[in-house]
């Protein structure tokens, strides 16, 4: 009996300036196989389907449990995590390419540090007095915890930014992930001390006004964050803040 195989087409690019080429691979099918295990197989046997030797594919990955946010890429045109992309659920040939909205490093690896810069710009933290034992934290009722917890599940994969038509160099839009974190920290009893700073950071160019409500973000989010809800809530808060700031002038 012939072994069952899986066909892959992977977009390769040796460096940011090198030309992109597509390479085809024919791999032995295994139960439970995901896109990551295919990459691992290629690393152990770096040969294309035409028998030409090649190099292992460069890509980001770490936990392989869809919680670290590393392995986002375009799989059959869709921004998603490679670890949770099971081969059996994908149409073949499985076409894998890097996220398109971020500077390419090599092959499937891109530079997504802009998200971490954005989180710094909006002060996405709770300003605690110190790390000494200062007694228990503020009381938080379960209802509030249940509202905040989903926002805190963001894995910084940047899928929401990749699929957003407004996320591009022209607008400089921060993207949904950062806005959701603003909502999270503005909701926190201590974190809200920076509420006005955060809203002002989202008020100008590249801020929340750039959102065109395409709602692609919420569709693409692998962790089902309530992104559109966060955007409308923060949009309202930003407008209120703008009005307040105008009146104070």
């Amino acid at each position, binding site marked *: 009996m012939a072994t069952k195989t899986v066909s892959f087409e992977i977009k390769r690019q*040796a*460096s940011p300036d090198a030309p992109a080429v597509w390479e085809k691979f024919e791999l032995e099918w*295994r139960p*439970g*196989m*995901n896109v*990551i295990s295919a990459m*691992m197989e290629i*690393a*152990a*046997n*770096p040969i294309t389907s035409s028998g030409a*030797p*090649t*190099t*292992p594919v460069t*890509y*980001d990955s*770490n*936990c*392989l*449990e*869809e*919680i*670290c*946010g*590393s392995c986002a890429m375009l799989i059959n045109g869709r921004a998603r995590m490679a670890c*949770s992309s*099971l081969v059996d659920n994908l149409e073949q040939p499985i076409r894998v390419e890097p996220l398109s909205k971020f500077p390419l*490093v*090599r*092959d499937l*690896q891109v530079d997504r*540090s802009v998200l*971490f810069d954005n989180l*710094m710009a909006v*002060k*996405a*933290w*709770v300003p*605690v007095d*110190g*790390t000494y*034992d*200062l007694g*228990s934290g503020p*009381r*938080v*009722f*379960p209802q509030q*915890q*249940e509202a*905040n*917890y989903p926002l*805190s*599940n963001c894995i*910084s994969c940047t899928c929401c930014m990749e699929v957003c038509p407004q996320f591009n160099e022209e607008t400089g839009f921060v993207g949904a992930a950062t806005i959701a974190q603003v909502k999270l*920290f503005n909701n926190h009893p*201590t*974190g809200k001390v920076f509420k006005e700073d955060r809203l002002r950071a989202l008020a100008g160019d590249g801020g929340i006004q750039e959102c065109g409500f395409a709602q692609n973000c919420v569709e693409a989010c692998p962790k089902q964050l309530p992104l559109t809800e966060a955007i409308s809530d923060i949009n309202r808060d930003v407008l209120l803040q703008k009005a307040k700031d105008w009146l104070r002038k």
Partner: protein
Amino acid sequence: MAAPRIIVVGGGLAGLAAVIKIAEAGGAVDLFSIVPVKRSHSVCAQGGINAAKNLKGEGDTTDKHFDDTIYGGDFLANQTLVKRMCEAAPGIIDLLDRMGVPFNRTPEGLLDFRRFGGTLYNRTAFAGATTGQQLLYALDEQVRRFEADGHVKKYEGWEFLSAVLDSKGHARGITALNLRTMELRSFAADAIILATGGIGAIFGKSTNSVVCTGSAQSIVFQQGAYYANGEFIQVHPTSIPGEDKLRLMSESARGEGGRVWVPRKAGDKRPFGQIPAAERFYFLEEWYPKYGNLVPRDVATRAIHKVVYELGLGLEGQPMVYLDLTHIDRETLHHKLGGILEIYEKFVGVDPCVEPMRIFPGMHYTMGGLWVDFNQMTNIPGIFAAGECEYQYHGANRLGANSLVSCIYGGFQAGPNALQYVKNAPPSESNGHHEAELTRQAEINNKLITNQGGENPFRLWRELGQVMTEHATVSRYNKNLKIADQKIVELIERYKNVNLSDRSQWANTSFAFARQLKNMLELSRTVVLGALLRDESRGAHYKPDFPDRNDEKFLKTTKASFTGSVEGPRFEYEEVDTQYIKPRPRRY
């Protein structure tokens, strides 16, 4: 005088905890990490973090937490530090709470707690089933705050290659590799904290993340640091076998009432729902009536192996057993275990609220690690270690939900201790050792990138993983451990013929991996030979030929030192600090 500068390698919970303490005290930190720190392996911790807050009226105390931890670790842990950690734990939970970790709450708005393995108390605080992720994010956010004000400089995408040691053997910095540009550089600091996590990769497939290779620990071991208790490897009873890794299925599933069972009849083909209660073998509950499904991990793992391999009762003859949550209502499950149920459904395609999960033990954690003193410093002056990469807190077996607290506590100790050390450290006489170390590293790199031979590093790694998993996990036999060591020696020899199919100088992942692989191979020998020499059974280290604990001979810390790639590690033994709790038989 300029602020003291300290290098922290690793941006998981332990590393970030150390960074925060140093920055808070006014020190400056260079933080090195292979991945952006927010993507570190700590995100994988699921179930929770232990602290005896006694918010359930059970009379829990930090002393009981201390006793459970020592007893769970089969008396191998040095007691003084474990005691301090358990005493500090409630304050750590409060701090995390103040930092905004969305812990689950009681109706009154207080922290909720659940039960974990190896204890009879509800002592585990949790944020759904993604506690590690939430904790790591809280520390990541605080570090970003210190980054914004200039106390911390991050070097993400840099891999630690070696410590720079001066002529007296004191640490004076590190060399590191930029994983994108492949630039080799040295960085100066009078103290280094390694917080580089676990070693799962030496077992091929484990519950660990890709970066958990143990490479950094192995490097400083090869530079003269002791590696302690390497033979103590935790195999988690409940993981989901996969092609690329073994995915963790948290102990919290059992903490919330999950039951482990198999059909009493071997090879029973009926769907689970058609098997009446009387024909189900809830073996943990039958064998361990007091702790039931929440016996410590080593005990549960051996029980599952017994059921599968000795009694032949694995599901449909396969090495798998049921972990059943279907008797619990969906809303409770979603509220308390959401994250892990989602993982199971995504990767297996079955809803665990409807059908029991199929699980099997998988390599999960190393209790052993770099030897450190009570100040978290290794025997190399100026090199500190914290978190899973050191050996201090868990003895022969770690209790569930104790790792998060040990990471943060260890980091909180290492940071201030490193600062103190730097203040008193004698000034470096010259910078010559930086250049010498750079030359040594450049030679290794050049040799590797130009090496001609027939060995693919990824295939060598698979062979290592197979032999380690087969011979050095749940049941260990001296005959097999010797076979495993011979195999590793063979792989070290074959590594000399390693041939990189990628010889480029840009984001070359095979190059970085091949360097890690050499270090994995060297470290594997401390695990295998440490196990070979320890002729007893204690905690996770189980030898069927020596089924009892032997305190007279082996109530001792194993210390391995590197003597050379050919000679292998040398072993010596150190007394264990048992001043608070007298060792007693461990019977659950």
